[in-house]
């Protein structure tokens, strides 16, 4: 502070006797000095002083100085020192952070000043271009504060800065050059700037990737010692994550650029890790790399890309390294959990990877399959909740689109003649299914249900599974036991788990439905639940799922159980539950927030064990079959008769109103069309009468024409006669003679010729007339 005071003194001169100037006054003087001084040294000193005051008197410096500072950037750009002060000052006043000095000074400041000054500065996009230009200045005093100022701006107003940088020529390139900067402070701050800049902007992400970001970042990670490196490694990984998240084009580029291969070595644990231990930074770095892998193979990405990435991960031994971590000792629980999730997504839906995973053995004595070891954790109450969820997700990924894997798990439950006593996946799941830990019940039920998805053969195979319940008692089928357990357990979570398993099992499987219907009390239980009119906390889900199972019993019923035929059950629902109530119960499931949450993504995301109620694949099944069930019940027919609007749910009511509107609309259109039709008919009649009239006239005309033709023919033949032959002329001349006056012989001849000409003319005229007609 002494340094700043002396600086102030030298700028302002010794304080005048009496009261010290207020902060605002000082700032005002300094600002005017920056704008009016002719000597560079004076301006520089004033800027230095402003910088010193810009935290404590941020509001004053910003309000009065922002324009002047901007001018300095433009006019004094050749002097690194003053530019440095200027950039630092701007950085302080636009910062989102609240400074200590500031808070003791201005207690009642509520608005975010930094953001407002950022907005002022960004009003003119030229300002940003100006700052970007300073990145090219090598001088440390300029380049570093320029990076910091840009970071401060992007933190306050990301969207605006992103847009400006996108359109400024070479904007991103200038930033990328900073990653090869050998002054580490600048490079590290540039990393932070890029992390903020690439957040949720696909265009910038792609340009950054195009500008060799991945090469640069791997270079930095290498320099810093891979996952053993410091926070800079984490920053590099975070930037990569930004570039890849939901950006298919960049993921494709990452894969094609062989960068996945560069990730693999990071997962190889050093042999002495157990002695050295995991530093907190290593844990963070490791988390980031795992996230990176998951981003590449996320179930939200297009299948084609996921498959290609999975293949590369297997071929580059990344999957192997991950599996080794699963089986290694001393791995922190959260890393282990995340590794399990990652392995899951690397093998999900990829048969080769799933097969590889199935063959991974844990280094136990005797060696057990990794899957068995994992499932042991899942059904173990003492394991952390997140880890158990991860194991279930991984197991689901293993079974996803994996008929062989599904078959293998079911196989372990079937009676075999090999006297194998080793613990199997199936045994673990069965013991979990009926254990006293209701979370284990839920996990096991869901896990088992995934063995049956889209696999009719395994649904039938699983029906063959028999359990010995009590010593000496008759063994019962697994499905039977599930239905019994459902009625006996008091825990909602366990019941929902079993119901989801039964749903997956009975859907499209009449044999399963048959066995279920034969379980004593099963149908009564469902009916009671479905027709219950009250419920507390989440019990509506239980009732909805019971309704769903009832529906499955109708839809997939082969009428082989007496008293429980399709018809019987439909009537049961109609009479005992009532169609209205039934539909309402069913509808409540898909409207439940738990349903919405579970249907979002395959991974189970719950913070607490009580949140685990529904599961992704079940939601998918429910969505598909809800309509089929309602159709099977003939609900449509009943909807159209008898149900008053009042009894309808909000959604149905809206639908009804919509239909009414539609019908009204169509009615109106129908009337319109009728009117138009009448008009057209009238017009048609008019046209018809006109047409007959015209026809008659036409006939008249043609008669006239024939008449005229006949006359003409008569005339024509007489004319022809005169021309061609003299003989028939005599009688004609005789007639002529009678009409004409007495003429002598030669004259007579002339007259005749004249007469012929006249006739010919007449004939031509007649011809023309005829043609006209």
């Amino acid at each position, binding site marked *: 502070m002494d340094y700043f005071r002396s600086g102030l003194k030298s700028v302002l001169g010794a304080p005048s006797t009496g009261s010290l100037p207020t902060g605002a006054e000082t700032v005002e003087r300094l600002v005017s000095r920056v704008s009016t001084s002719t000597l560079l040294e004076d301006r520089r000193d004033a800027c230095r002083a402003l910088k010193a005051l810009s935290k404590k008197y941020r509001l004053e410096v910003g309000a009065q100085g922002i324009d002047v500072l901007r001018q300095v950037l433009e006019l004094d750009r050749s002097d690194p020192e003053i530019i440095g002060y200027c950039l630092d000052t701007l950085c302080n006043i636009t910062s989102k952070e609240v400074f200590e000095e500031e808070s003791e000074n201005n207690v009642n400041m509520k608005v975010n000043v930094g953001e407002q000054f950022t907005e002022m500065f960004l009003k003119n996009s030229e300002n940003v271009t100006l700052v970007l230009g300073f990145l090219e200045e090598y001088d440390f005093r300029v380049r570093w504060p320029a990076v910091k100022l840009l970071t401060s701006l992007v933190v306050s107003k990301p969207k605006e800065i992103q847009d400006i940088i996108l359109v400024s020529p070479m904007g991103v390139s200038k930033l990328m050059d900073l990653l090869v900067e050998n002054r580490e402070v600048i490079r590290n701050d540039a990393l932070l700037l890029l992390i903020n800049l690439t957040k949720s902007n696909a*265009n910038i992400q792609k*340009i950054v990737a195009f*500008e060799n970001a991945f090469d640069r970042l791997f270079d930095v990670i290498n320099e810093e010692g891979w996952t053993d490196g410091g926070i800079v490694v984490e920053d590099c990984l975070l930037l990569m994550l930004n570039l890849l998240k939901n950006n298919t084009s960049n993921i494709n580029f990452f894969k094609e650029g062989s960068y996945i291969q560069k990730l693999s070595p990071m997962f190889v644990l050093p042999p002495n890790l157990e002695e050295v231990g995991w530093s907190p930074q290593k844990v963070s770095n490791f988390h980031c790399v795992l996230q990176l892998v998951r981003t590449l193979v996320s179930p939200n990405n297009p299948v084609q890309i996921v498959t290609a990435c999975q293949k590369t991960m297997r071929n580059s031994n990344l999957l192997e390294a991950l599996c080794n971590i699963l089986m290694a000792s001393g791995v922190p629980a959260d890393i282990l959990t995340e590794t399990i999730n990652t392995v899951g997504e690397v093998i999900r839906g990829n048969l080769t990877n799933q097969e590889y995973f199935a063959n991974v053995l844990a280094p136990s004595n005797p060696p057990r399959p990794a899957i068995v070891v994992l499932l042991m954790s899942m059904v173990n109450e003492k394991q952390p909740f997140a880890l158990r969820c991860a194991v279930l997700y991984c197991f689901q990924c293993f079974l996803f689109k994996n008929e062989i894997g599904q078959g293998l798990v079911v196989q372990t439950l079937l009676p075999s003649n090999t006297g194998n006593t080793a613990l199997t996946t199936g045994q673990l799941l069965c013991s979990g299914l009926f254990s006293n830990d209701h979370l284990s019940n839920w996990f096991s039920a869901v896990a088992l249900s995934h063995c049956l998805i889209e696999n009719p053969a395994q649904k039938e195979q699983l029906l063959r599974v028999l359990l010995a319940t009590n010593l000496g008692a008759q063994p019962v089928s697994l499905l039977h036991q599930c239905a019994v357990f459902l009625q006996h357990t008091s825990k909602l979570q366990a019941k929902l788990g079993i119901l989801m398993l039964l749903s997956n099992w009975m859907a499209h499987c009449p044999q399963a439905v048959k066995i279920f219907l034969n379980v004593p009390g099963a149908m009564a239980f469902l009916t009671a639940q479905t027709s219950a009119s009250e419920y507390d906390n989440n019990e509506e889900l239980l009732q909805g799922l019971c309704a769903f199972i009832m529906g499955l019993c109708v839809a997939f019923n082969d009428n082989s159980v007496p008293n429980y035929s399709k018809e019987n059950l439909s009537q049961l629902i109609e009479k005992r539950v009532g169609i209205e109530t039934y539909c309402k119960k069913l509808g409540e499931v898909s409207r439940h927030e738990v349903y919405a949450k579970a249907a979002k993504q395959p991974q189970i995301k719950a913070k607490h064990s009580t949140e685990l109620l529904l599961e992704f694949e079940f939601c998918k099944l429910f969505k598909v079959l809800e309509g089929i069930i309602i159709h099977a019940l003939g609900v449509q027919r009943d909807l159209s008769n008898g149900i008053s609007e009042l009894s309808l749910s909000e959604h149905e009511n809206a639908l009804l109103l919509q239909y009414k509107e539609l019908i009204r609309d169509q009615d109106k259109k129908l009337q319109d069309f009728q009117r138009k039709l009448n008009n057209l008919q009238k017009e048609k009649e008019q046209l018809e009468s006109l047409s007959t009239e015209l026809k008659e006239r036409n006939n008249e005309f043609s008669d006239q024409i024939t008449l005229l033709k006949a006359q003409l023919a008569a005339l024509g033949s007489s004319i022809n006669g005169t021309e061609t032959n003299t003989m028939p002329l005599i009688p004609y001349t005789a007639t002529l003679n009678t009409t004409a006056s007495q003429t002598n012989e030669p004259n007579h001849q002339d007259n005749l010729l004249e007469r012929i000409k006249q006739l010919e003319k007449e004939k031509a005229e007649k011809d023309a007339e005829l043609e006209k007609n």
Partner: protein
Amino acid sequence: MSYAYLFKYIIIGDTGVGKSCLLLQFTDKRFQPVHDLTIGVEFGARMITIDSKQIKLQIWDTAGQEAFRSITRSYYRGAAGALLVYDITRRETFNHLTTWLDDARQHSNSNMVIMLIGNKSDLESRREVKKEEGEAFAREHGLVFMETSAKTAANVEEAFINTAKEIYEKIQEGVFDINNEANGIKIGPQHSPTNPSLPGAGGAGGSQGSGCC
């Protein structure tokens, strides 16, 4: 999947001339008659062989619409090759070539190889631009020229490969500085198996200090 060289390409030209279809035909060997408008840029890649050397092509297919022009310009500088595409059935796309060419020349490095492509040669009946006109334009501006059809795949391979050949020749002649990645060329990772932890070490060595002005 090691390669001797990696070339970066861009595809530019008016909207609707078939840039994305050319890329799809080249990378996936298929044709999609209805293609969504490209937003910004999309990436594609393929390996080819020239002079018995494996060469990896990384291709950025840009949006032709004016609105994306400032974004797509960011890709000019780092590209070694560009396919400048027009549509032989739409005269105006040919008329705009000078604008595209000026833009490309202004923002790219001077050695960038530009291939002029008259696309949709399968639509002979609707042709508006004669082949000779394309040839003349290419000759006048020092470009390589070819007519292609992304639909029938005619000349598509050739267009991409000939551009690569041209770049390859320039490298042999020493015109390109292959150590400067800003030129859009990278030397492949060296095949030495002794350093498995850092497969990229071979290519990135020479670029330090380029951040200085």
